């Protein structure tokens, strides 16, 4: 039973990270039907910013949790600025172009950002300090779930709830939903869709940065390439849950995390990816739009 729980919580942690990144993919897709392949790189930039900020701030003699929160905040702001700029530079000029053009622009942006960090920072792996000590109240269950894992799961939960409330009730959230439904109509009704799109990128990038900071704190190492695999997995999660749907992204992330964890635990880690992508194929056969995705008729 312990073994099952360990795998369950391991999968939950991994799935939460996928979910945080997948939210960005799914929001952007929902609004402008673009798969933002540079999103994984935002996650990586978030982790790097946090490492630099934490090293600088530690000179002030702050303690671990304060460092994590401050460095996390800086990372979120910095990454959000990246997200905003990427949209303005790489996607906005192509908004009226064919659908493939912004996609290729996104892939180019992803490669550019990876190599930019490689050149500006380092090609080496860097050690990311453990900023949060083990919580005392977690001691009895520490063999099942560590504090850094609890932090990841809790942050994902809070972020998702806040995001859902924001989209449901705030003025901007309503404008987002209107833009997602029909861009032209929203524009005619006086919604500034440029602003809506910018806000979408800012929120998505901020969430990815949170994921980057938390997972680095959990596993203790980063390099310029970490965004690629995390990005691909999160994209899978978004498609699995139904791309364009916020709860779908979270559900997809969790299902993917658990599938990988249990596949490794009970079968073999050799087939981790086989199970993960096998599940994706299986679900897409029966629900082509993903688990919670709504199948929309093609706009003619």
């Amino acid at each position, binding site marked *: 039973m312990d073994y099952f729980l360990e795998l369950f919580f391991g999968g939950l942690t991994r799935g939460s990270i996928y979910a945080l990144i997948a939210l960005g993919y799914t929001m952007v897709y929902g609004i402008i039907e673009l798969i933002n392949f540079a999103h994984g790189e935002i996650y990586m930039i978030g982790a790097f910013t946090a490492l630099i900020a934490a090293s600088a701030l530690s000179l002030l003699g702050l303690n671990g949790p304060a460092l994590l929160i401050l460095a996390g905040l800086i990372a979120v702001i910095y990454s959000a600025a990246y997200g905003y700029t990427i949209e303005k530079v790489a996607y906005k000029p192509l908004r009226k172009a064919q659908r493939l053009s912004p996609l290729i622009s996104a892939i180019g942006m992803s490669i550019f950002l990876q190599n930019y960090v490689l050149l500006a920072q380092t*090609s080496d792996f860097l050690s990311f300090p453990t900023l949060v000590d083990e919580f005392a109240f977690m001691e009895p269950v520490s063999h099942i779930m560590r504090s850094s894992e609890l932090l990841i799961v809790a942050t994902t939960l809070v972020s998702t709830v806040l995001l859902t409330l924001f989209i449901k009730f705030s003025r901007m959230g309503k404008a987002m939903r209107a833009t997602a439904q029909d861009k032209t109509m929203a524009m005619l009704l006086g919604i500034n869709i440029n602003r809506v799109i910018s806000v979408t990128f800012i929120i998505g990038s901020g969430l990815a940065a949170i994921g980057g900071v938390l997972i680095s704190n959990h596993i203790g190492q980063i390099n310029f*390439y970490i965004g*690629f695999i995390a990005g691909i997995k999160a994209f899978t999660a978004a498609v699995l849950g139904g791309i364009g749907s916020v709860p779908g992204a979270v559900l997809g992330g969790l299902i993917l995390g658990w599938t990988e964890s249990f596949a490794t635990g009970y079968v073999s880690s050799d087939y981790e990816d086989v199970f993960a992508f096998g599940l994706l194929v299986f679900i897409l056969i029966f629900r082509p739009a993903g688990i919670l995705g709504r199948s929309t008729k093609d706009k003619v």
Partner: protein
Amino acid sequence: MKRIICILTGACFVLFSGAAMAEDAVKLGVPGAHSGDLASYGLPSAHAAKLVVDDINARGGVMGKKVVILQEDDQCKPEVAANVGTKLVSEKVDVVLGHICSGATKAAMNIYKDSGIITMSPSATNVELTKSGDYPNFFRTISPDDAQALLQVDFALNTLKVEKIAVIHDKGDYGKGIAEFAYGFIEERGAKPVLFEGITPGAVDYSAVVQKIKRSGAEAVIYGGYHPEAAKIVSGMKKKKMDTIFISDDGVRDETFIKVAGKYAEGVYATGPIDTTKSPMAVAAIEQHKKVYGAEPGAFYLNAYAAALCLLQAVDKAGSTEFDAIAEALRTNWFETPLGSISFDEKGDAKGIGFAVYQVQNGQYVEVGQ
């Protein structure tokens, strides 16, 4: 008008003499990972080649000709390595020092073989490269993988006296190679491999694999692969308060591993080439690196230094850049190198070098057995 003709003739002279010099030089190809996340394996070799060539050129070159370096970046990726190989061959390279990673080396080797070019790798340890007999043009100044696996298993069973061993690898040519040999040797010795699994390099975390190791009841883990994943697994195990012994390979015996894994690296065992850094020639080579590059040399530096020496001296002794002549010179002569006195057997493996077991103690790798 006269002046223009003058300038033109002058330019022609310069051009011709330039071409003549290039024709007359011995071309040493240095392909390897010089960028990307495995650059720390490849750059030291490029440095070594440069230093050796500068030295030899200062003493008059080989066969009275200057040696020039053709450096190419393969990023340790097989698909890039094949292109790099083709490019070097088209540039009429004479001998090749490289490649660095086994996968990349395999991908490029047929290209060199078809063109009759001798290659010598300072770091590609895949067994097939020599023992399969497919690549008569391949030599190396490092022991093959099964030498490491044999040492790891003997060390675990005889010195550490463990009975249950889990074998984990990263599914790559290098890591899986070592892991499979280790698995075979464990069974041969009558002990019990309790787990044999491949992990996905670059995955977000390895908590499920760590749990599985814990459940298998393994007293020791033998890991085949490189340092990034090893650091994640080791810190994962230590954070779960497991005291499982971690034994790994040369891909982990790298300063970066200790830097990244920090305090969790303490006590980790890794096999690697026998420490010859105290021999006078090695000390001189290391000093030379510090003087020119202002830093300690990295992984495989001495192996590459030795390989460059062997290749160029063999060309000199053979008096030609022909395939058979160089191969013969490599097999029949003993070369004085920073790794000691070495020669090469029929298959291309070096005679006179070997592996030792190292352990991380107080943030440094210390030799604990051979």
